[in-house]
């Protein structure tokens, strides 16, 4: 009995509990209105579509914990698949083209990072530039038309194949990357540096952390994840659209914030982002299932952001107060 009690208390002590509770409540609400919501085919749909944007949100979360923003992820999400297709069209084998595409995405992120860190321009501005530039390039190169992505079946399987009922390759990618980042953030020295860089820069520097280098790595990761998500989506849909990922940056930031990442840096978790990503997709899908007009999606996400952040701040205040009291 005592063990269960302590288990409950321990889980309530996790920061992600608020978003997890909202997720649970949402699932129950949708299910009670329309049981089809939890039908095998709908669960399968949810599991299949969530990872693409989830992978992007992982990179954005790390960068936000490190105290910076990346507004360019939506554009990179569209740009990298486009580059990959152009490479394939110019005769490069698909595998090499995908690897090159991902390499280009790291270069894109590296550029954002170096410009931000070396010039001291706020990342909000540099990546806003990135948002316009990479979208602009995609539109200019294609003349606004979609491009078809024909890949050999092995590659399609590798990125978006179905392994077993409810298990898709993109899910495996998402969980593997989430696990990897969780490990880095919570169990390694570099993870501590990320928290320190985003929390108190002076303290971090005093500790001997090269905050500039940490930030550049995070910008690079953020773009790489955006490129990866974009490639998975394009492979799944069989085409790259010049407007692919338009507005995704705000979804990704919203997901990170709902999952408990602070807008000011220094705080946040990977698990929170993963749960929040599922919450966001579930709201979208559930509204369709209960036949609510699609206009409601924004309203709900707005409500969830306000509620989740309010709770997180409430928790933060409580813990600061108790620290001061003790």
């Amino acid at each position: 009995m005592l063990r269960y009690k302590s288990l409950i208390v321990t889980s309530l002590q996790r920061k992600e509990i608020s978003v997890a509770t909202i997720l649970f409540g949402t699932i129950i609400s949708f299910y009670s209105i329309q049981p089809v919501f939890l039908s095998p085919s709908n669960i399968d749909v949810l599991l299949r579509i969530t990872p693409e944007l989830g992978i992007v949100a992982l990179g954005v979360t790390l960068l936000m914990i490190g105290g910076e923003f990346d507004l360019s992820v939506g554009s990179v999400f569209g740009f990298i698949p486009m580059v990959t297709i152009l490479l394939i069209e110019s005769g490069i084998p698909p595998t090499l083209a995908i690897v090159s595409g991902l390499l280009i995405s790291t270069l894109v992120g590296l550029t954002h990072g170096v410009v931000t860190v070396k010039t001291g321009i706020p990342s909000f501005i540099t990546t806003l530039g990135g948002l316009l530039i990479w979208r602009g390039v995609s539109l200019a190169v294609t003349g606004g038309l979609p491009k078809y992505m024909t890949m050999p079946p092995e590659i399609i399987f590798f990125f978006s194949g179905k392994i077993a009922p409810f298990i898709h390759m993109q899910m495996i990618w998402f969980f593997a990357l989430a696990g990897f980042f969780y490990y880095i953030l919570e169990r390694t020295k570099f993870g501590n540096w990320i928290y320190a860089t985003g929390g108190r820069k002076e303290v971090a520097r005093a500790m001997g952390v090269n905050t500039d280098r940490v930030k550049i790595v995070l910008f690079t990761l953020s773009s790489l994840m955006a490129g990866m998500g974009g490639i998975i989506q394009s492979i799944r849909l069989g085409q790259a659209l010049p407007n692919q990922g338009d507005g995704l940056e705000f979804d990704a930031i919203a997901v990170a914030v709902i999952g408990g990442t602070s807008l000011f840096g220094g705080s946040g978790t990977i698990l929170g982002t993963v749960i929040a990503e599922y919450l966001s997709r579930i709201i979208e899908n559930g509204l369709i299932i209960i036949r609510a007009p699609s206009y409601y999606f924004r309203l709900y996400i707005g409500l969830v952001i306000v509620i989740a952040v309010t709770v997180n701040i409430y928790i933060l205040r409580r813990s600061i107060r108790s620290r001061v009291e003790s």
Partner: protein
Amino acid sequence: MSRVTRRQAISRAAAIGAIVGVGAIAGIGGYLAGSATGRETRTVTATIGGATVTQTRVITETVAGAPDFAKGLRFTYITHGGEENVFWNSVHLGMREAAKLTGCDAVMIRPKREGDLAQEVAAFEATIAEKPDGIIVPIAYTELLTYVKKATDSGIPVIVANIDAPDPNDRIKAGGLSYIGQYLEPAGYFLAKTLSKYFPRGSHALILIEGPGQVWAEERAKGIQRFLKEYDCTFDRLDVSFDLAVVESRVSAYLEANPQTKAVFSVGYTSPIAGKVLKSKGVPPGSVAIGTFDIVPLVIEWIKEGYVQVAIDQQPYLQGFLPIIQLVLMKKYGLSAWDVNTGNAVVDQSNVSLVEELSRKGYR
């Protein structure tokens, strides 16, 4: 990983309880608000006055009472047209009014962002899982045909509206039962033929292409060119965009260099800009015939000015209204779906005032 004390954990539990409560209330509230739109009873009376036509129409929305003809039937309209797209508001209005007349339940799913294929596919898959009695979808991307087939295979009838597959046979193979929208190539031909009474045989014409390479634009252009050849005309194609400043500078340069031009067409709605250019040069209305597509304020303004003689309306209201009617009849009486060309409505001086009024209300 932040850890807190037991006392905080308990207060946190209380806070979370409150959130779940609020969330549930918001959820149910939103759902009721969503479905309530179909339940009210109200009468709208509008008087439409124009120079030539005066007409009073009464729209009675009485779902709760009279029409239980199609009660219990649920249809879903999935589009690529974002929530701010005005054109799709007219389609949406048509769909809602057909649903009210027949008493069925119809919803339209629009992506947050115009043309977001991933989101549209996600919506399509969720809809198939939800198993409505019918789906309506424009084939804005050929990828969507895969899901038309998926829906058909799982027993949901699908009607294609607004945009057909580039090859209608692909749509038929996927299971799309009918196409309700404008027939693009014939619409181009029809525009050119209708405008031809305003310019002599054998003239020189200009065709503005707002979406070079895009199916809708090229198909309409093909039709215009087909008629111009039959009418012994010469013509040039000028690639432009929907950016009116770009159109103005290119058209003005073209007309300067080619003063023999007697007709200007556009496959989108930008040829009224040619009227603006001519007016600023002091050329009286009617000396160059201008024809265009779609009813937007720009088109209405220049028809009233007299510079634009003909606009062809593809009637988005019908593209929302008719698919619902077809699906209801299919479900109730087992009738088959049928193709409809909604795109041959001529707007000119004689009816522009009426159309302007209706356009403001979202019917045109």
